[in-house]
């Protein structure tokens, strides 16, 4: 085998042979990502029996785009720390404040503290915003699919869309076990279709997200230029939803997935 030109040129940026599946939407500020800041809890709002929204004042917050997340750290008095990632629920225009929505995970170290001990005035530490690839600057038509607390970063997009009066198409499919488990239930409008997997109100079907709910959005309801799809939730849900999107014709390089692990 002989060397090809591309083999010998080690200058110029490397371009993988496959089209990059999910190029970052925005550049991330490395300075903001590196710095731990104090976040003071100002308000707790219950969303469902298992999820609450926590509002923080973060005076030095660098700002974020809908869809980004942060790293949150709790410190015990012997110096032990626990850190976890959380998506930002609030829209960017909420100056100096951010909101997170946390599920109460059974036996969870960090979510357990929030759901049993946290009260306004408490201080935690955050660094971020992190990760540009799941960000939505509000430019392209957005098809959002989430389940459980996976709706959190998508809600930041919905709120941003509303707050700015954007006209670019945006649709949200949100899956929950039943109406009482639907986070942000009171806030949804015509852009949202809830999907109930266990219990539903009279006349609403029960079952997991199906091709029949996804396919029309990629056919008759497809906006010019197509959708940028954002999928968020557990790995099992992300696998299911992304397969439905691919089967309905959505290009894989226009599907962004945030898995909560």
């Amino acid at each position, binding site marked *: *085998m002989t*060397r*090809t030109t*591309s*083999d*010998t040129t*080690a200058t110029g940026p*490397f371009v*993988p*042979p*496959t*089209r*990059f*599946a*999910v190029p*970052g939407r925005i550049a*991330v*500020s*490395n300075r903001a*990502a*590196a710095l731990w800041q*104090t976040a003071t809890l100002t308000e707790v709002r219950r969303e469902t029996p298992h999820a609450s929204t926590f509002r923080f004042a973060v005076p030095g917050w660098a700002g974020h785009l809908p869809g980004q997340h942060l*790293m949150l750290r*709790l*410190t*015990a*008095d*012997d110096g*032990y*720390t*626990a*850190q*976890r*990632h959380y998506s930002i629920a609030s829209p960017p225009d909420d100056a100096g404040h951010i909101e997170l929505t946390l599920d109460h995970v059974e036996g969870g*170290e960090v979510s357990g*503290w929030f759901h049993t*001990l946290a009260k306004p005035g*408490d*201080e935690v*530490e955050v660094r971020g915003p*992190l*990760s*540009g*690839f*799941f960000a939505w600057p509000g430019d392209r038509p957005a098809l959002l699919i989430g389940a459980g607390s996976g709706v959190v970063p998508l809600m930041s997009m919905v709120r941003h869309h509303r707050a700015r009066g954007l006209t670019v198409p945006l649709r949200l499919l949100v899956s929950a076990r039943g109406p009482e488990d639907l986070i942000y239930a009171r806030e949804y409008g015509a852009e949202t279709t809830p999907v109930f997997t266990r219990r539903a109100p009279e006349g609403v079907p029960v079952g997991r997200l199906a091709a029949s709910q996804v396919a029309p959005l990629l056919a008759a309801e497809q906006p010019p230029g197509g959708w940028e799809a954002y999928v968020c939730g557990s*790995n099992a849900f*992300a*696998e299911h939803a*992304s*397969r439905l*999107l*691919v089967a309905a014709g959505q290009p*894989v*390089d226009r*599907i*962004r*997935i*945030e*898995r909560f*692990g």
Partner: protein
Amino acid sequence: MNVTRGFTGRPRVQNAGLPPGQYDAGDDWPVLSAEVTPDLTPADWSFRIDGLVAEPHTWDWAEAHALPTSAYEGDIHCVTSWSKFGVRFGGVSLDAFLDTVRPDASATHAVAYSHTGYTTNLPLADLTGGRAWIAWEYEGRPLPAEHGGPARLLVPHLYFWKSAKWIAGLRLLDHDEPGFWEQNGYHARGNPWEEQRYSGD
């Protein structure tokens, strides 16, 4: 130190194998890829090394499997804070592949890329000396697709985003070039023992 009121955390574990800020995920193996899990069969899979090498080479599944097998038994560490102890991967040491292509003396770094287009950068020194593998087995079974099967890169001494799933190739370079997460603010090297999570750490 900013102590969080009332936070005690889990009972402290004295585990010398746990890097700072990490916790033991036990039997869980979270999946965190940012793209759709590809439908890639062993017949579709190939692995290429090119760039600053004497002989660029592409292996298919059978040719890669003809190389001497090598196993990794030990721990893995994800930047999202979980670690997993005592896992066993089977495959081939990356040294066996590199011996075939013979890296130039000028090669200092590599970009690893996936069949999905995912990329990650590594110093070449982290890929040699029996510290990196192309792995296709996990606990004696074929590596599941969502964990990078049919084959992934395995560099267990660095955070796991460096261990590119669905590995398609390595390009050897004379400089460092940030990959997907590295362009999104993550650290260029990602050594869990120095907690190199984000650029600037």
